[in-house]
């Protein structure tokens, strides 16, 4: 019987493990480093740290994503999309369909949302010692966030209004052209 060639051994390894030996070595090296740092990370409140670490992994995928995905679908439904079929393209020149309209809510809501997601401790007044520590007033943040949010929606509304007005003008012109052609 012939000894197995290097090629055959690699194929056998791949069949059993599911990837190349290099894959295994890299993963093992990273796990070893994670353990080396991890025992130091877990020293002290091990359970608390583990909960925070795993919680951080799941926060977006199992909490934030379902929340914003469902909200987004609800807004689309309110604005009349996803009820009928074939309601036009994403952006028809001169026409604002429900597709484009949803983005006028989506974009300012997203920007306002990420600002709150990052700065919620200050915006929601969660940091009791902020003023005594920094010497700065803490009551400005909720108002600022609300005003920024108001500006974002107002700017979006302005863009939408301009688009609607332009669209209406285009449509009137098209109708006028059609009447002239019909004479």
């Amino acid at each position, binding site marked *: 019987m012939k000894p197995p060639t290097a090629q055959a051994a690699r194929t056998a390894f791949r069949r059993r493990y599911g990837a190349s030996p290099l894959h295994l070595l890299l993963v093992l090296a990273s796990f070893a480093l994670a353990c080396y740092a991890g025992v*130091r990370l877990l020293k002290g409140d091990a359970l608390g740290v583990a909960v925070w670490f795993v919680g951080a992994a799941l926060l*977006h995928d199992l909490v934030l994503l379902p929340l914003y995905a469902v909200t987004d679908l609800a807004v689309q439904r309110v604005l009349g999309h996803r009820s009928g079929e074939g309601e036009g393209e994403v952006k028809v020149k001169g026409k604002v369909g429900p597709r484009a309209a949803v983005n006028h809510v989506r974009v300012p809501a997203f920007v306002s949302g990420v600002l709150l997601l990052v700065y919620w401790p200050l915006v929601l007044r969660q940091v009791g010692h902020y003023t005594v520590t920094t*010497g700065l007033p803490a009551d400005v943040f909720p108002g600022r966030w609300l005003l920024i949010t108001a500006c974002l929606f107002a700017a979006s509304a302005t863009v939408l209004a301009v688009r609607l007005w332009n669209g209406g003008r285009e449509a009137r012109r098209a109708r006028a052209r059609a009447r002239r052609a019909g004479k």
Partner: protein
Amino acid sequence: MWATGPQRGPTHPEFWRSPLRGPWLTAVFGVVLLIGVTVLFVTGLLSYAAYDPDLAAVNDQTPDKARLGFYLFPWPTSPYWLYRVTQGLHVTLGVVLVPVLLAKLWSVIPKLFAWPPVRSAAQAAERLSLLLLVGGAGFEFVTGILNVQLHYVFPGSFYTLHFYGAWVFIGAFVVHVSFRLKRAVRALRAGPRQPPPDSEEAAGLVSPRPAEPTITRRGALGMVGLGSLALLVVTAGQSVDGWLRRTALLAPHGQDPGSGPNGFQINKTAASVGIRATDIGPAWRLTVRGAGRRIDLTYARLLDMPQSQARLPIACVEGWSTSDQQWSGVRLTELAALVGLGAEHAPEVLVESVQRGGPFSSVVLSTGQLRDERSLLAVRVNGAVLSRDHGYPARVIVPGAPGVHNTKWVTRLTFREPS
């Protein structure tokens, strides 16, 4: 049943209907994060080095680090704005990358529920590695963002969590990049056109039953970019002075702390660390020790010593900084000379504050920091006596050092040989 998975729900590929998800979009977010996270990691390591943790126990917030401190080097005093730049970049970039991180996670969500959950040993190992990657990223962003807002709700010392968390994360990050970079480059080369859902290039990201698009792929990228831009605008201003600071509308240090010579940002007020009037009143003395000698100076005697000037900023680990302030006081080398240590013999110095306890009530400054002629025990700033909140009667100011090493309310200097 096991092989095909449930016919409904997120494990079914048709559950995910966004027409945007695909290798190109994921690759764009991935490459941005590859560059961004690399900068975050390097500036983070630099920030730890800036504390000169190997110099003394009081400088080291993570004394168990062992080999994880292999790269440490004496933190330089030139350029004097070094920490201001590296730490401002670290914090501002971290905040700005939040929407990109969310978008990246959104773009690969079908993979989390891919069925069957484990196909091979290799895939099981990779999924475990992904837990470290995503958990580590979330952990680092969350602890960092909470810490800069002084919201200390995390389970332990920020320094321990953020430093060791970074090392747990970075291994998984390197693994992920080496497994995926080739695919990402290929996807970017191929462009935004969607490959067939079951093709290899699709990598399980393309929906087999896409809904009607409500936004273009370019529009989605623009929206994420706008989120990052908004965060940049409300944050970056806290690293500069003047009217630009006021643009940092939501950042913790975006407000003006008052006018006048002492009207610049305060990390911790005298009240917040329990400084009493008697601690810094007429009974205050500066004790200088070294070479077996000890001298007690009154405030008046300190003022009688030769005064030097230095224009230096305050740069905090929380990412904010001030512009250069005009400090005036006694050179640290002059104080070393009081106990008979000449400039060329001046070793290290242990600086102690009248603060009672607390992690940064004392610090050891390196020989290099001590001998820099801009390193002062300052008594005046911008032409006025130091305010209580800026460290009256005397504070240390060292070029390039993190803010907490510029100890306030100093009462004792111990010059000593490097240990």
